[in-house]
């Protein structure tokens, strides 16, 4: 597949892949790209679709789901699921805006206000993740239930803290870094943070013991435990990491939306799970790669972008994404069973 394919885990060796076929996500990506190139080519406007400007838009819009996707990837590999990410992103934007506004009113436009607000925002994300992890391990709740609960709590807290409205910056108090993060450009620091985080997570998964443990826990939890893997500790770490990544995505969202808005990130969790699964991760755990997850986000972004530029009714994007998800997973099944 790629240089980032998962190493054989201590617990159960990953099933060898049929090397005669190109990997699923790449095929999906190429297919979607070819499809829209063809369709938009027929209609005219290909120059727009394949322009540098549009590439910048695609990458810009993909940054947030990709960062959340990295966290979701860790959780899915470990055999869990995290339904709370969308709500946590909203909570982070609200908390960040609250903290920033309070500090701004006391200290004025100083860098410390921004730094503390961002720090608190990311920490809130991490805390939610930690809570998820503890609920899954200490209370032995199924991840679906634990994170569904967190989903409600975070969304409710966000609405409450925002007093049911959208929080905007005080007049003239928008810090420069927010404008920089919101600008559609290859020089966007949010994009580069994504590149860095993707490399770090790939390194974590493939070069460290923790990474091997995550794959092991997801492949076969009982075997992993027998082999001496500290399963609860691994899981708590996974959810916390995912929470921190979601927290950082919340900061990027805060900048993109120029607000603290408790309604942000609705259905983000489903988008991200779809993307990561299209990218080859399995809800059964033990499978998935960073490249796949990022490609999955790119495929979804491409569909949304193509549908939008093609002036197709918006409904079409949901149908296309659904079809693609089913086709992709069915294909993976079929290839595995054929062996």
């Amino acid at each position, binding site marked *: 597949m790629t240089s980032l394919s998962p190493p054989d885990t201590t617990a159960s060796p990953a099933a060898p892949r049929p090397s005669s076929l190109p990997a699923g996500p790449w095929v999906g990506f190429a297919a979607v790209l070819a499809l829209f190139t063809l369709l938009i080519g027929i209609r005219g406007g290909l120059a727009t679709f394949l322009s540098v400007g549009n590439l910048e838009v695609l990458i810009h819009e993909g940054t947030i789901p990709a960062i959340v996707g990295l966290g979701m990837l860790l959780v899915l590999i470990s055999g869990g699921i995290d339904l709370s990410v969308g709500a946590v992103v909203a909570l982070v934007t609200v908390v960040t805006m609250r903290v920033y506004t309070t500090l701004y009113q006391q200290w004025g436009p100083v860098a410390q206000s921004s730094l503390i607000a961002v720090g608190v925002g990311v920490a809130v994300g991490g805390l939610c993740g930690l809570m998820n992890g503890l609920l899954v391990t200490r209370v032995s709740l199924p991840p679906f239930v634990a994170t569904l609960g967190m989903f409600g709590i975070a969304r409710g807290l966000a609405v409450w803290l925002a007093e049911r409205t959208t929080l905007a910056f005080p007049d003239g108090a928008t810090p420069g870094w927010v404008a920089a993060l919101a600008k559609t450009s290859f020089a966007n620091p949010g994009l580069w943070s994504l590149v860095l985080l993707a490399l770090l997570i790939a390194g974590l998964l493939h070069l460290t013991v923790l990474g091997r443990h995550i794959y092991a826990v997801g492949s076969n939890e009982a075997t992993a435990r027998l082999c001496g893997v500290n399963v609860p500790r691994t899981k708590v770490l996974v959810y916390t990491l995912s929470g921190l990544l979601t927290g950082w995505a919340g900061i990027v969202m805060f900048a993109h939306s120029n607000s603290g*808005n408790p309604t942000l990130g609705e259905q983000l969790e489903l988008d991200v799970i779809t993307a990561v699964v299209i990218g080859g991760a399995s809800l059964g755990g033990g499978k998935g790669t960073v490249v796949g997850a990022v490609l999955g986000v790119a495929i979804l972004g491409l569909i949304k972008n193509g549908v939008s530029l093609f002036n197709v009714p918006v409904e079409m994007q949901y149908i296309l994404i659904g079809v693609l998800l089913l086709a992709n997973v069915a294909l993976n099944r079929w290839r595995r069973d054929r062996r």
Partner: protein
Amino acid sequence: MPRTVYYLLVALCPFAGGCGGPSDEFTIVVVPKGMTHEHWQSVRRGAERCAADLAAEEGVRVRVIFDGPLRERDAMEQIRIIDRRVATGASGVLLAPQHSKTMTACVERAAAAGVPVVIIDSGLADPYHYVKYVATDNYHGGRLAAEHLIRELKKQGKEKPRLILFRYAVGSESTEQREKGFEDGVKQLCPEAEWLSTDKYAGATRDSAMREAGPLVLQFKDQVDGIFAPNESSATGMVDVLRSQGLNKKVLVMGFDASKPLLQAIQEGDIVGSILQDPYRMGYLSTWCCVRYLLGEDVNEGRTQMELSTGEVLVTRENVTADSTLGLFNPDYQGRRVIEKPRFPKRVAGRGGER
């Protein structure tokens, strides 16, 4: 896999029909607050009609793209759409901002990229980066509502009416203007009026309006004479509650905006009147201003005339079926209207450009 690609292709083939026509001079993107509400469809028809008129009268080809968030009140998606359209070659943008403050940054980015933005429907907090604000004068609409309600109450001999102002939502600029206009109008016309309640909020939907209106009506049902509800959902929700308690026609309700149920309630006399906006004209005039700006004209007199009002119309039982009323929302009647177009001088260098 090739088979999957094939199926996907087949699935999309119906959309590949209409081939690209001749290249357009200007592409104007209309970004409403949501896609579903009838209000925005009228805006869209107005914009398309303006494009047709421009092509017929002056040979200026304008392509109108209607692109908004699927869900009403999705500010993030609006920001995405603006950035996306600006990056992919829009000549101008008409934006109905979801939020007066959070949408400022993307308007600034569009202006920096040389794409003029005309704000429609609701205000934007930052006045420096758009070229025109085309909207209903909501404050004036609120005053009209006050005039009519007070007049009707006085007809019934109620010189000291007891009123309820049933507000819409915190932070919604347009409805707050209506509420303020109504309050000021009442204070001026009938200073002896008594306010029973001015601090209840209907919320976004008819359901939420009913939930809030229920206890309010129960509390004041023996005292209240007149109620103002500043938008469609709050008015219909209030009327639903009054009907269920048998108080319709006894308590006079003044609404704002229109929908089928609301117009029906006016015909039946459950609502004494409503102030209607003219979204068709809004779409028409905003497109007109945007294109005139692109043609190098000074649409705001060197940034001194930023606002253009599209008019507010009092609709009562008497005129609810008149052609002029139907022309506000009915597509057939809209198509027959002739919209008067403002004329602008050529832009002088250093004057009227976006900053």
